[in-house]
């Protein structure tokens, strides 16, 4: 079949896709957590496979080759995901929800989580959004935020507390229960 692929057989290509696409998807998803990003990688891998079909040596190396084509984007996205503050929030949500009474089959996916968080953030006023973003996402201290936006520290604390309340309410509506760490 690999031989057929090298000869330019589309049927062979289709068969290989059927054999490996799900595996690529599942494997990458374990590291990337976002379906959107994973789909990009799967697409990329197989497009590259077709473009480089001549370089495949034999049946055995096909699986290894697929990994090599995936690893660039996979590793970069993996690193980025670990550093994302939104992902840290998502982990916090997972910890909380394991104690909740909600059925565990309703665990929300990362893509949806990010989207809901974005949507909830829109409900904040501009000031609140800036303060929230600086405090939680950029991890500045209350004092640093106060200096940055020319506010006094108590105002920052109050606005942050209000923002968390609003976000919590918004996210509750979209069925996400989240404890956003109060430490700033």
């Amino acid at each position, binding site marked *: 079949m690999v031989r057929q692929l090298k000869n330019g057989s589309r049927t062979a290509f289709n068969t290989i896709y059927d054999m490996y*696409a799900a*595996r690529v998807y599942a494997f990458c*998803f374990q*590291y990337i957590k976002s*379906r959107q990003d994973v*789909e990009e990688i799967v697409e990329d891998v*197989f497009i590259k496979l077709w473009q480089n079909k001549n370089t495949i040596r034999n049946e055995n190396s096909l699986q290894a080759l697929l990994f090599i084509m995936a*690893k660039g984007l996979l590793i970069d996205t993996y690193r980025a995901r670990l550093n994302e503050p939104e992902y840290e929030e998502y982990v916090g949500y997972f*910890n909380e929800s394991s104690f909740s009474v909600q059925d565990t089959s309703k665990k929300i996916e990362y893509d949806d989580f990010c989207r809901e968080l974005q949507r909830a953030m829109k409900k904040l006023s501009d000031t609140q959004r800036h303060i929230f973003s600086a405090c939680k996402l950029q991890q500045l201290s209350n004092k640093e935020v106060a200096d940055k936006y020319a506010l006094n520290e108590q105002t920052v604390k109050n606005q942050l507390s209000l923002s968390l309340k609003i976000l919590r309410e918004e996210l509750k509506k979209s069925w996400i229960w989240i404890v956003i760490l109060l430490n700033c």
Partner: protein
Amino acid sequence: MIMLNILEEKYIQNKLTAEELKQLRHEVQQLSDESISTRMQARWMADDIDTSDVPVSRLDQIKKRIDASSFSSNSYSWLRRTAQIAAAIIIPVLIITSFYLYRENKNLGTNEMIVSTNIGERANITLPDGTHVTLNAESKLKYAPQTFNKSERLIHFEGEAYFDVKKNHDIPFLIRTTDVQIKVVGTKFNLSARDKNPVAELVLEEGKVLFTSLSSKECRAISPNQKVIFDKKTGTITITTINAQSISSWRKGDLVFHNAQFADIIHTIESNYGVSIDIASHSDIQKDLFSGTVPSNNISEAMEIISKAYHLTPTIVDKKVTLSECN
């Protein structure tokens, strides 16, 4: 190294704590791309990757895109290029147009459809799955068209409406209000869930409904010709038997009251007609319950009927109704 393995395994299983995430982040930062690659490849080549969660439909979609970019024949590539340029022009135009269309909804820039009615308005809408909803006055319905008919049909709702839900056993229909959630498969029912009312009510005409209190997590199954009353204060769910047809008759243009309290009648009429009703009477008559039908499109007739029942006289000036005692 062992620490890293454990953390990585937990990460993959989504069992990390926030602290552990920070540790993993730190560890990975120290590693080169090569070492990460070696570790990943070892896992990749092993046999045990669970593909049961992978959505087949998405794989098909991806394949289509792959085919499109890999297999276009050269003799038509000029056409493809022209199409791409044309698309590059048309798509921004379409986006701007949709932008203006979506401005009708209150939420700008989010993927959400909102239908709402004001006082005295009613609206009929059909959802992407074929479900018909008749919204009564002062009601609001929200859903996300992009995700609506995928794994579930979820809408957010406040107010009163009649639902004729298209049957689909694979994709349940969920209505979420501030206090309760209703899950159906294919049914007809009337739901009144107004934030300002102390109770939410559902009357089931046909089919089956699962009614859940969001606060107490209590879940009850409802059968046709049953009415559910949810008390927001106590969180209790009460089920009674009733004639379902009459409750939803507001759709046909009548307001039907069964042993209704005076205050409720006044409120319903105010809401339906968009008027404000003043009661200039001190007597106790308003304690009586009223049963009867009142038109929803003729304010004078409606007021006549109510006034007669309560020995009052109506005076209607524009959007203001005054009820005074009979002499």
